[in-house]
């Protein structure tokens, strides 16, 4: 079993280096300015970046600031940007970097305190604005819940609050729109609350408003960096967008939600007729949908792509432009004619949903007439 390890050790110097040393370029400085400092650290088998930073602290720079706690990827303290990528230092092996120096920098989205430490308090402020779990009044304790109902939430509950998703989210990072969007971490938290089998609150108003779920345009950067492998966009943000869409843009579903208790539409399984796999947020009991130009919809086919409605034809079919992703680049391919039955969900007008706010930067056909 040790064969896997030996492979790394035969080269003696796992990282960018000579003579069994690793070269690190660590950012040092505070809000008044800073620069990278070069350190050489003796290589050790299985070493992670945090080990190297600790070595530097002990031997070269006692006052080098970094956060860490568990050193086992369970607490989410040691977030940093390593060679430009947001990662946990305790989970990043130095032998990943063959023949290159390791650059360690603080998270860029948050104000710098010193060296590798940033002021992440904004996240804690945001968290306070989310209405907490509220079980039904006088619900008998101990609770009875089914394994499959709680298991659905495990993915969200795995979050270790490393804030790497917040760091990489371009709404927060590049546009600094911290007043408009709570960020991926808190979409995950709200998804967990919204889907808790015994929670009684509605948070779609908040999501639609201050939390700004519509700001996310599904570039999926957050789920790429998540050290817990939470599919943040697919399994938290999109289902929340769907909830918001049905509450705000789908009058029938909105009415149903008002009239019937929150949990019923998705909890009862006697209505799951369509059989298209796992229910997504709003569930499978979709009322007939209305379509308008500029609506963003999700298609049933294959990997369930998003599409934008170009026109609604006389025969009731839809002409759509399908969203394609090339890395983080979006483009819209089409037009393609589909049946209304091919649509699983209508998110409402493009602008409101915020899906592809970048759309306007791209060459799109404009349709003026509303066929409705």
């Amino acid at each position: 079993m040790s064969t896997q390890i030996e492979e790394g050790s035969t080269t003696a110097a796992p990282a960018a280096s000579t003579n069994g040393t690793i070269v690190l370029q660590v950012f040092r400085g505070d809000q008044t300015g800073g620069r990278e400092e070069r350190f050489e650290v003796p290589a050790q088998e299985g070493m992670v970046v945090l080990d190297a930073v600790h070595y530097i602290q002990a031997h070269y720079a006692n006052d080098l600031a970094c956060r860490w706690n568990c050193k086992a990827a369970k607490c989410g303290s040691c977030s940093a940007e390593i060679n430009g990528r947001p990662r946990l230092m305790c989970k990043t092996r130095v032998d990943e970097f063959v023949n290159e120096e390791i650059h360690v920098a603080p998270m860029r989205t948050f104000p710098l305190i010193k060296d590798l430490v940033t002021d992440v308090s904004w996240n804690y402020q945001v968290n306070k604005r989310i209405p907490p779990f509220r079980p039904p009044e006088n619900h008998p304790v101990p609770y009875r819940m089914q394994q499959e109902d709680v298991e659905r939430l495990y993915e969200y509950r795995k979050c270790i609050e490393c804030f790497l998703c917040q760091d990489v989210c371009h709404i927060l990072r590049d546009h600094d729109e911290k007043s408009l969007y709570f960020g991926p971490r808190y979409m995950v938290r709200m998804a967990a609350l919204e889907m808790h089998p015994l929670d009684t609150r509605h948070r779609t108003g908040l999501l639609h408003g201050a939390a700004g779920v519509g700001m996310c345009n599904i570039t999926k950067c957050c789920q790429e960096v998540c050290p817990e492998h939470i599919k943040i966009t697919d399994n938290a943000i999109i289902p929340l967008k769907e909830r918001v869409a049905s509450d705000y843009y789908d009058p029938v579903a909105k009415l149903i939600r008002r009239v019937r208790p929150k949990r019923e539409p998705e909890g009862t399984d006697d209505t799951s007729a369509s059989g298209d796999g796992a229910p997504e947020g709003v569930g499978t009991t979709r009322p007939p949908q209305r379509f308008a130009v500029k609506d963003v919809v999700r298609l049933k086919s294959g990997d369930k792509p998003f599409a934008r409605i170009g026109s609604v034809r006389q025969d009731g079919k839809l002409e759509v432009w399908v969203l394609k992703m090339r890395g983080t680049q979006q483009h819209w391919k089409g037009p393609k004619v589909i049946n209304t039955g091919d649509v699983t969900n209508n998110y409402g007008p493009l602008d409101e949903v915020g899906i592809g706010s970048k759309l306007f930067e791209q060459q799109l056909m404009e349709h003026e007439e509303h066929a409705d």
Partner: protein
Amino acid sequence: MTESFTTLTTDVLVIGAGGAGMRAAIEAATTGARVDVVCKSLLGKAHTVMAEGGIAAALGNVDPEDNWQVHFQDTMRGGQMINNWRMAQLHAQESPDRVYELETYGALFDRTPDGRIMQRPFGAHTYRRLCHVGDRTGLEMIRTLQDRVVALGIDVHMEWTLTRLLKEQDRVVGAVGYNRVDGSFVVFRAKAVILATGGWGRIFKVTSNSWEGTGDGVGMGFEAGAEVLDPEMVQFHPTGMVWPPGVRGILVTEAVRGEGGYLKNSEGKRFMLEYDPKKKELSSRDVVARSIYKEVQAGRGTPHGGAWLDVTHLGAEKIKKKLPSMYEQFLRLADIDITSAPMEVAPTIHYAMGGLRVEAETGQTTLAGLFAAGEVAAGLHGSNRLGGNSLSDLLVFGRRAGAAAASYQRDVGLGKLDDEQIVEEQQTLLRPLTGDGNENPYLLQQALQQAMQEGAGIARDEKGLKQSLEAVLELQQRAARIHVPGSRRYNPGWHTARDLRFMLTIAECIVRAAIERRESRGAHWRLDYLEKDPKLGKVNFIAYNDQGTVKLKQRPVPEMPAELARLFGEEPTKTTPPEKTSKQPPAKRVPA
């Protein structure tokens, strides 16, 4: 010269925001008291997140025969009868309610087919008793409590370190410390103070503890005059990672064995079948840790001096479902896919059974106005803690300390702060930055860890302990000459300098008590006194501060009332732990 400082006034000051601190804060806040929580890290990062296996509570969901009496007996037997029986009783009686309460805060646990909380077997628990969520129970618990703290609007001061309790005569009336971010000084004036600072695993080299486990609460309490109970009782968790070197000591949850993992030596033999044929891999932690140690000593260790922990027979699906974070941890940090290869494990310092002596009902220490809960407090676990009893300890005694502190503060006014004490502490804190010393705090800490690991580790004897004591005393001298470069702004070297002083004090308590306990009991294993001494089985050691020096005294173990003592039948002395009284129904185990 007085440095400036900010003063905050509160009813209940909670130091530490792990499970115990947050549970205490929640309880105190719900009574209407003003509560301030101070923590060294960001909120939600406390060492509680590292608890993986589960919360022990006799719900009887899986094994209906379970009840608090059995849990109580398991806890007392595990601790080799030097536990505080009243704490063990309260703990066993109240933990079910504390677990159910967590669910009302929004926690989620694995379920039984009929929708109740699932329970898994664990070392030395007679029945399947640990409520769990895969292998990330601690995270679930801390996030749940954190959400509750936020929902109640409790003020949390993140990245602040308090380093000295302020006293008015014999009563604790506040604390002083610093803001880690900008290095400014802070003073709390509080009617009651709750210590919930966790353990001191960082005193040792190979440990599962995070940097925060420096024993601040015990150190502060000791310096203020509180008594430290059972300091010699330090738990080795049998299974820590061994290889590669960078991960040495990181915890491999007992749930691995709870779910049916085997321990094997280099010859592929399941050696626990010999050391404890009845409980096998799920024997108590002290027994399993010693067995691994003995195998290694006998030349049957793994390449890096440990044992194999094998789960490959469980099948990949179960492993990924029940032990997801272990799977990820080994894959990522050790290049090992545990679904097809065994883990290499060795004992790692995990938990301090010892700590501040507290009253069972209230968590009050021997000082007025000072309460303690969780790992910082002592008594519940005796000489060895059972897996899963820690999380329930945090909940049960966190709540009790919170309630007691809240009721105490209603009857007292704010105390008077003594500026002299504040100035004194500021000077102590500043010395490493301003003094002309030349010692490196990190290297001193490493030297301490090395000395304690060698002389006061899993296998102890008089000679080794005395060597450790000498090393500790010498390091105490050197620590006075620590120098740290840089400013007070987020300076970990500076922070380490103060932490180290607590660690050195506690190290001295540990070693002195370990020398005096001339017997083997629970986690305390003396190669020169291999047997239990019935006389020492009736006493606890207490370390206390006698004008700046560590003194030791004995205190009789509190005597159990007859109706509880009766549960044990013949007192299980001089026999090996596996023996069970015939009164108990046989344990039900999941198929191994």
